[in-house]
């Protein structure tokens, strides 16, 4: 950490010009400040940190702050990481000034964990294991708190992060402006928010994103293994098959899948995230830890194994993606299966399934992508934003 000195107003100089011209990396050797930054970053990773009680995460010599483009960046909004329903009510009923006053008043009261909390904890567990095996690698999960809260809430958020012993050192509080630009700047691999609009914006920009809801009851999830479950169509894959099903019915859907069995499905918004998980999994396999891998992925699809499921599997294989368990439900409800799996997060494009999962205590996230959205606009969900 750098000592910040009391200096007078400084100049917006040609240094800023350099900042804007070379946006992509630290590698550009233009200007002394960039070299200085690289030098100091190296210092950061090679300098041994003392291991103290609570901060025992600081492994000697390990990478602490990975470069966003090397890490798997997960951007989480404050409203899904923590429970902020009470504060939301203040905002909705009394306006923003009162909301901020309330937040400042309660600055030392930490928020309770929200739906994304177990997921983030699990990411940290994976990081710990990765650091043990590859102390110099920057291929880690990097969690960034991205919220369009005003910075007035910042101190309460930081206090909360400390209270729960979370390892989140990076954040963007945009004070009301859209966070989308910042998501891109952080090379975000996955964005989780309570706001469907922002999630849609992110998806439109090619960033994997999903809306999270607080389930009424929370089933316990593993503390040693990250489990991520995906729906197939319109999540990992495009929504082309769903379009056929919605327009022409089940028979046509089966016919179409049979005829196109050897044609790859197009990719969906979360394919990239599955890919990123796969890359990290391979790092454990390389060290002989396949059976003990702290990341496990699931496909939970309404397709059936004997028929339409084949196309899905062939597509995954062609993409070079492994999925640990593929569950073909042939139209059966997903809730009970998910209850057995207990994923830290389950991605589905249909609110119907998201709600069904949540009713059984699964943490489900809605991916507002594809043809299912138009059909579901009438469905009101009272699960909050």
């Amino acid at each position, binding site marked *: *950490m*750098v*000592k*910040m*000195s*009391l*200096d*007078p*107003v*400084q*100049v*917006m*100089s*040609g*240094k*800023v*010009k*350099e*900042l*804007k011209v*070379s*946006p*992509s*990396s*630290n590698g550009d050797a233009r200007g*002394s*400040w960039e070299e200085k*930054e690289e030098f*100091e*970053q190296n210092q*950061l990773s090679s300098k041994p940190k003392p291991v103290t009680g609570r901060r025992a995460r600081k492994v000697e010599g390990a990478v602490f*702050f990975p*470069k*966003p483009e090397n890490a798997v960046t997960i951007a989480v909004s404050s409203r899904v990481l923590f429970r902020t329903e009470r504060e939301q009510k203040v905002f909705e009923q009394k306006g*923003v*000034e009162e909301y*901020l006053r309330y937040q400042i008043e309660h600055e030392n009261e930490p928020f309770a964990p929200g739906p994304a909390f177990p997921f983030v904890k699990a990411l940290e567990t994976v990081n710990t294991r990765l650091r043990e095996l590859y102390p110099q690698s920057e291929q880690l999960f990097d969690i960034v708190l991205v919220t369009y809260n*005003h*910075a*007035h809430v*910042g*101190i309460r958020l*930081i*206090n909360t992060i*400390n209270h729960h012993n979370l390892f*989140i*050192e*990076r*954040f*963007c*509080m*945009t*004070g*009301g*402006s859209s966070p989308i*630009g*910042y998501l*891109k*700047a*952080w090379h975000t691999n996955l964005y989780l928010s309570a706001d469907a609009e922002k999630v849609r914006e992110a998806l439109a920009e090619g960033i994997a994103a999903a809306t999270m809801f607080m389930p009424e009851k929370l089933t316990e999830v593993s503390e040693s293994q990250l489990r991520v479950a995906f729906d197939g169509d319109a999540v990992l894959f495009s929504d082309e098959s769903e379009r056929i099903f919605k327009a022409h019915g089940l028979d046509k859907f089966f016919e179409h899948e049979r005829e196109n069995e050897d044609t790859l499905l197009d990719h969906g918004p979360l394919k990239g995230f599955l890919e990123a998980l796969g890359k990290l999994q391979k790092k454990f396999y390389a060290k002989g830890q396949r059976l003990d891998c702290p990341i496990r992925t699931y496909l939970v699809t309404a397709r059936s194994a004997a028929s339409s499921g084949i196309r899905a599997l062939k597509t995954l294989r062609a993409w070079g993606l492994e999925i640990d368990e593929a569950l073909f439900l042939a139209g059966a409800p997903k809730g009970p299966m998910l209850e057995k799996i207990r994923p830290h997060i389950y991605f589905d494009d249909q609110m119907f399934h998201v709600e069904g999962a949540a009713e059984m205590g699964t943490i489900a996230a809605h991916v507002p992508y594809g043809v299912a959205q138009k059909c579901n606009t009438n469905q009101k969900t009272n699960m909050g934003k």
Partner: protein
Amino acid sequence: MVSTVQNSDVRQKDVDHAVVVAVTSRALFESDTEEDGDGAYAAGVAFPLLQALQRVNEQLLQRNPAESLLFDVVLMTTDSQQQQSSRFMSSTRHHGLEVTRFCFSSEEDFIESLLKNNIQLFLTTDENEVLQATQKGVPSVLLDEHSAVCSSEQLRVLFCENAIIRPSSDPTPASRQAAQSFSSQLGKMRQKFGMFDSPLCFTLVTLRGGKDSCCGALKALRSIGVSVDEAYCLAGAPRSPILSLLRPHFLLSDGFSNLDD
């Protein structure tokens, strides 16, 4: 030789309560080009910044017509030829700029002019002038072509740790004090607006330290009366993608807590 001429087109500010900002003629105007062929200079790189300052004033006066905490903008020039002087004045009027005074001095006397006019923020395109002014305890900002593309609707001020800029000189206690009191003044101005649609926006960026550095900075700024709107804690991530989105008009680095590693 230092002299001051008032701009009769513009209401004079209460200098005891206003935040006096000086801008050089070279920053404000493009002296090489003419506009509209009627002898007025074209807009220079400082234009958007000045327009943003003006907008803050407009909004402050809208809320309170008797407001005295306003930006008081003065034009400073060391180009003392008579013809140039009157062209600066007519160009100011041509563009409808809210400049209250014109301060003429020689190059040797311009620091004296800054001090005499109680300048709290000095805007220039000349690096030497920045160095000299800073050494005398006047908070100074070097403008360049990037300033020309900043917003003219909202004044965006970035609070950032010093590491971003090569320190050109050791800060004197006087300059630290001046920078802090300038920030406090801005903080007071900001309080007069609500959360949304404010013509003034404060952003904090911490470059290296983690959340605790950021928390410390938020608290330190709060203690001098500055409530930031946006905060970004980079913890070592590359700064340019974030900064290019923020587009601040200028950066301030002072009054942060010292968090040793």
